[in-house]
């Protein structure tokens, strides 16, 4: 199929994107901005599907929109909680009044800011036009890299080209990416989280029932995602996002899914398992074939599956721990999460 033209739906998607992006940047209340951003993620997910990128559509809807949105909301509510508590003492109230309501920005500054904005916008538009002029429309090189991928697909151990690139041809990127996730967890741990937060002890009955129903489905579906990633859109990241979403819903019902049955060392090991196994397999193949991360075609399929399963567990736990960190929930005695406020003495 040759590159298709844009249709009405693309036009609508484009308009929606600009409106939602504008709303997420301009709305006074940050809560509404975050809502607009979540909407933007969903609209963009449809655009991915339009562009034939179903893998990314899944990831965008789950991670870019869902998990990121949850992180932002959790963080906002923590800030609001803090300011609510703080406003009890008069000094703080005076300071708080200056920057109006929690989670809100102060009013946009006077003319200075607006002029700066206009100037910056003009410069940016010019720069973007220049980029656009020079980069698009580039002719698609004949065959080129996509052909190379398709030709070598049989040796990759999987039949979904995106998975083949992610976990075989450019496995280095993905290894480092899992490393970045791990680093974020470590960073979160180092930063700690401050105010002790009294989570509502009245879990929603309906939500709790929903959680009980939906959790097995999420687990099953994420296992399917990992498995199907070898030949169709899906894979570790999407699967991990589903599991993490399960954890977040569980948290909303008032249960910390990590609080039961998992010792701290176990949690730490599981958070780093994906990276560790990926790295050791890479080194193993290095010893075997003289090239880092060069999977042997015979065992590539199983290696990739092993990495994907462990990466799913690690990334899911990492995302959940990152969420807990953003929400400031002290996972008592869970070493990996943020440190409870009373322990850090602040």
């Amino acid at each position, binding site marked *: 199929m040759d590159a298709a033209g844009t249709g009405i739906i693309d036009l609508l998607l484009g308009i929606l994107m600009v409106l939602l992006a504008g709303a997420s940047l301009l709305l006074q209340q940050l809560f509404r901005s975050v809502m607009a951003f979540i909407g933007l993620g969903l609209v963009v997910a449809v655009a991915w599907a339009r562009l034939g990128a179903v893998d990314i559509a899944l990831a965008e809807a789950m991670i870019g929109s869902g998990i990121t949105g949850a992180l932002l909301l959790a963080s906002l509510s*923590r*800030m609001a909680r803090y300011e609510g508590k703080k406003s009890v003492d008069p000094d703080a109230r005076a300071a708080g009044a200056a920057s109006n309501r929690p989670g809100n920005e102060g009013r946009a500054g006077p003319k200075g800011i607006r002029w700066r904005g206009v100037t910056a916008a003009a410069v940016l538009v010019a720069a973007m036009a220049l980029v656009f002029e020079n980069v698009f429309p580039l002719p698609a090189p004949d065959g080129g890299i996509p052909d190379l991928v398709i030709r070598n697909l049989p040796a990759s151990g999987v039949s979904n080209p995106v998975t083949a690139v992610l976990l075989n041809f450019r496995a280095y990127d993905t290894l480092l990416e899992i490393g970045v996730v791990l680093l974020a967890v470590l960073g979160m741990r180092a930063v700690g989280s401050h105010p002790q937060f009294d989570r509502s002890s009245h879990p929603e009955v309906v939500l709790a029932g929903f959680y009980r129903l939906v959790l097995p489905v999420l687990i099953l579906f994420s296992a399917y995602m990992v498995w199907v990633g070898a030949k169709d859109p899906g894979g570790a990241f999407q699967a991990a996002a589903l599991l993490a979403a399960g954890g977040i819903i569980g948290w909303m019902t008032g249960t910390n899914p990590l609080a039961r049955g998992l010792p701290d060392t176990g949690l730490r090991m599981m958070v780093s398992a994906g990276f560790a196994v990926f790295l050791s397999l890479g080194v193993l193949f290095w010893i075997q074939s003289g090239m880092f991360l060069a999977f042997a075609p015979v065992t590539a399929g199983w290696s990739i599956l092993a990495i994907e399963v462990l990466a799913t567990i690690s990334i899911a736990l990492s995302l959940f721990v990152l969420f807990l960190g953003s929400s400031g929930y002290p996972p008592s005695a869970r070493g990996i999460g943020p440190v409870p406020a009373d322990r850090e003495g602040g």
Partner: protein
Amino acid sequence: MIDISTGYAAMGLLLFAMGLLGLVLGRHPVRKILALNVMGTGTFLFLVAGAARYGLANPDPIPHAMVLTGIVVAVSATALGLALAGRIHPSRADTDASTPPEESGHGLD
């Protein structure tokens, strides 16, 4: 009629520019992090639009894989950024130096 890949590439550039503006001009750290994410979305859109030049049935899988990686890295960075923002928040550091004095000066009265 505009080519679909060109159209979405322009869209990606526009989102990137909007995000960059928000990043520079926004004052609340959460706003800045949001803006960074809008920039990321624009970048991803640009990359995937580029991949679609090969036709929608057989797009270039390499930008796709890069964008998938990017999405996960973005969410990690967002989480860490929010943790840092939460950390500096209580000290009122969320209103940066550009805060007009009439807004930050109340504490002195």
